[in-house]
């Protein structure tokens, strides 16, 4: 298969939720013709591998705002895209194991509440009311925001995929971008595994592979791909409403609409995308110890499957959104860590604006790719990279 055209106005690399949403906004703004390419099949990357959590509790105001906008977008998703994503707003519960962690969560609460979101601080009893069967003494309290929630990622992907196709966007799956061609110092095309394509704008929405893609374009970037693992258990009748996240080790789990407990844990994996989509015995045993330690009643529940995906981490925990000043026409829409799905609706709108050469409302000191170029003091850091 080759492409329908020799050249496109924009080539979006990555048909995950960020790339597809970006193509959607571009197409609606009349930014066509647009080609989206992806090295795998639809849902083969992190968009098909995440736990479906959507939260607005963050440590930096910029992230809280993007998340709040994304929650609103996911609430409207069914009407706009015709797919039921089963977005269930039954809260994110952050757990503290000691007073220092609780103090940190209180600061999150203060920030989140100042943005008009009704977050609450809970004591140990309040937590126990939300998590039936939690081990005594496992927590000193936590924070809870009911409008956070979980969704089912696949229908969201299908919805945006079908929407962009009906807007005339071409989506080419199983096509890898091998390099970016530059002429007169700006983007002139991309070289793909199916041949060259002309374009003046490339959007790097390749998630865990975005660092590799930037480097193939000759751009040094600080994005680091990190493998994270996740598991799902047998389906049980509903007994747990919120997504639970433990501040100390990043343990997170929720009960899906289908009844499965789905969750993960931060393990010190070596960076790099080479590990593929493998699972490790270390994760299975560590995750099982953490889950059973917190909720002893889960001991007899069977683990059904485990898998892994790539986070696309940046040094300061903020996404990278905007045109790269070193290569005009090369637009970053990446660096969303492990939270691309939850932040996609809001970030993609701004990535599309950047690709159209229009200004965004984002603080460049936090989101622009320029922030990594000049040795300047770090403006802020988003460290709540949990769950």
């Amino acid at each position, binding site marked *: 298969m080759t492409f329908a055209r020799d050249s496109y106005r924009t080539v979006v690399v990555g048909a995950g939720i960020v790339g597809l949403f970006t193509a959607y906004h571009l197409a609606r703004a009349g930014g066509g013709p647009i080609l989206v390419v992806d090295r795998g099949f639809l849902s083969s990357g992190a968009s098909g591998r995440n736990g479906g959590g959507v939260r607005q509790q963050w440590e930096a105001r910029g992230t809280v705002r993007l998340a709040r906008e994304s929650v609103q977008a996911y609430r409207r998703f069914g009407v706009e895209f015709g797919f039921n994503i*089963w977005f269930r707003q039954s809260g994110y519960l952050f757990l503290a194991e000691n007073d220092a962690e609780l103090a940190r969560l209180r600061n999150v609460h203060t920030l989140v509440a100042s943005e008009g979101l009704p977050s609450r601080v809970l004591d140990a009893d309040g937590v126990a009311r939300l998590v039936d*069967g939690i081990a005594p003494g496992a927590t000193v309290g936590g924070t809870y925001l009911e409008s956070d929630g979980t969704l089912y990622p696949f229908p969201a992907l299908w919805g945006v995929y079908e929407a962009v196709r009906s807007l005339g966007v071409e989506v080419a799956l199983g096509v890898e971008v091998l390099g970016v061609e530059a002429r007169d110092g700006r983007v002139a095309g991309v070289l793909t595994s199916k041949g060259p394509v002309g374009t003046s704008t490339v959007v790097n929405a390749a998630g865990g592979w975005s660092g590799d893609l930037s480097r193939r374009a000759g751009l040094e970037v600080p994005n680091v791909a990190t493998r994270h693992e996740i598991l799902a258990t*047998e*389906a*049980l009748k509903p007994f747990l409403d919120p997504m639970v996240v433990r501040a100390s080790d990043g343990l997170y789990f929720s009960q899906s609409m289908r009844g499965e407990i789905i969750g993960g844990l931060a393990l010190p994996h070596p960076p790099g995308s080479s590990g593929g*989509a493998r699972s490790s*015995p270390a994760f299975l045993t560590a995750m099982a110890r953490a889950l*059973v330690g917190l909720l002893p009643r889960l001991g*007899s529940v069977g*683990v059904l499957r485990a898998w892994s995906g790539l986070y696309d981490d940046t040094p300061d925990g903020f996404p990278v959104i905007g045109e790269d000043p070193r290569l005009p026409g090369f637009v970053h829409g990446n660096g969303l860590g492990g939270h691309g799905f939850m932040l996609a609706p809001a970030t993609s709108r701004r990535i599309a604006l950047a690709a159209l050469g229009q200004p965004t409302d984002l603080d460049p000191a936090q989101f622009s790719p320029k922030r990594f170029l000049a040795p300047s003091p770090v403006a802020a850091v988003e460290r709540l990279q949990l769950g």
Partner: protein
Amino acid sequence: MVGEPDRSFSFRGRPRSARDGETLLSALSTDRIPLLHRSIQYHRPQGPLCGIGHCTGCLVRVNGRPNVRACRYEPAPGDAVTIENAWPSPTWDLLGAIGLIKPGGVDSLHGLRRPALATRLYQRFVRRLAGTGTAPTEAGSQALSAPSVERSTEVVVIGAGGAGRAVAASLVARGVRPVVLERGLHPPPVDGAELLGATTAVFLPPPAESGERRFTLLAFREPAQGVRIDARWVVVATGGYDASLLFGGNDRPGVVTADAALSLATPPRPPPFRRAVVVGGGRRAAEVLETCGDAVEAVVAPGEIRPDVVRAASDRGILLYPRSLLLRADGRKHVRSVRLCARSGGTKTTIACDAVILAHRRVPHAQLFFQVGATTEWRSGVGAYGPTVTANGATSVPGLFAIGSVAGFSPSEFALHAEVVTDAVVRGTGPAGPAPSPAAGEAPTELLGYYRELLRVPGHGRWVACPCVDVLVGEVERAVRFGYRGIEVIKRYSSLGSGICQGRYCLPDALLLLSILEGRTPPEVGYITQRPPVVPTPLAALASLPARSAVEGVPP
């Protein structure tokens, strides 16, 4: 092995008894295969299908512990066994109305999606219906805690069937003491080897690349004991299992695989059926006739019927239907008859029966090969993937060998092959030349031709493609029509293969189905990544394995 009925337990509040060494499913199958379960979404009556601990059909609750497989559980005196996912009972389940209201399937992808109160209420209602069992009680979970088993050994043999025992014995004769894992609950001992019975290997990651090459294998021993084995060599002898088949009512109570039929027909119990229809005309059908031929009414085969099966059948007056399409099994709560059609649009026949025994094809248990990253190949005879092996059993992963039917060898070759594999392990040699071509598939079923005819049968869209998640054939066809291609995407679109058996029973059929619908070969349709663990593994078993900081700091 099976003793007197001296284990008294309660089933739904009524006293029952089991013999020593007998499974719960066997004890409950007194006169016919029981109805214990309703399907997860439409609450159709769903029977025990596999008999070997994979399907959803025999899930019950025991002493506050949900999703216990009755076919893998031996009742202890005083056990309280109840049913789950049906109200008030599996025989009369009010939620069965869901399937009656929406016979073409509920469209969960496009249904109610406005952010309105109705959606919230609908969501809450649907969520209530999710899951099979209710969460375990803390006491139910804690009763399982047991110390873990850790071994470091030269060779681990996975599976103690014919091939596994042969290679273990051969290793012992050469002075190597292997650890042998066997999933069966009461395997006879293997002299000179350490045998762990009731133990299922669940996760074999690629061996560590740095330093001395060693495998770390995770397993669990019933009910929830964690097992971790380090070994230099791994010999996989996991064998195969009887596949499911697409037809109307293919998970009705009474439809069972030959695996289940043979395990339930163990003397001194009579088989829990009197007039069974056996599907298949090959070696496996012959085994069924040999064990319980007196309770068989007819043999129905997609292709020709082997002469030895014909002889065994005519000795007992069993009717033969070669080259037939099995259209449907009828009977609401239990199979009462099957409807057949001669291949290529011939005459239709109804046969009264009380069980359907699927013995038409055996598929290799190849999950571990996918996990470890070994090269696998499509075996068109059986319509499934198996490991690529050389003549001495070596796979593409150094140190990993395959033997027996999982490697494509027939039982008559096991003894000789065991010597060859042992020789390769003991001498530490690498792969030999190419393997002799694997044993040909059983009866020449022309699998794709058979499925092509099935897809022309009116009403096939309402057949169940994935019993664990209640995915209908029509939903798979719709996904293809909407432009979704490849099994990985179809799986995520339709949820097919994401249930409790993790696609073990629906995937072999789905691959053929998609091959026809997409107009490309099954290998081009792909294969769902085999994710660990091989079978649902209790969190308690995994949690019982102590952290190994050296390993856990640097996972493979």
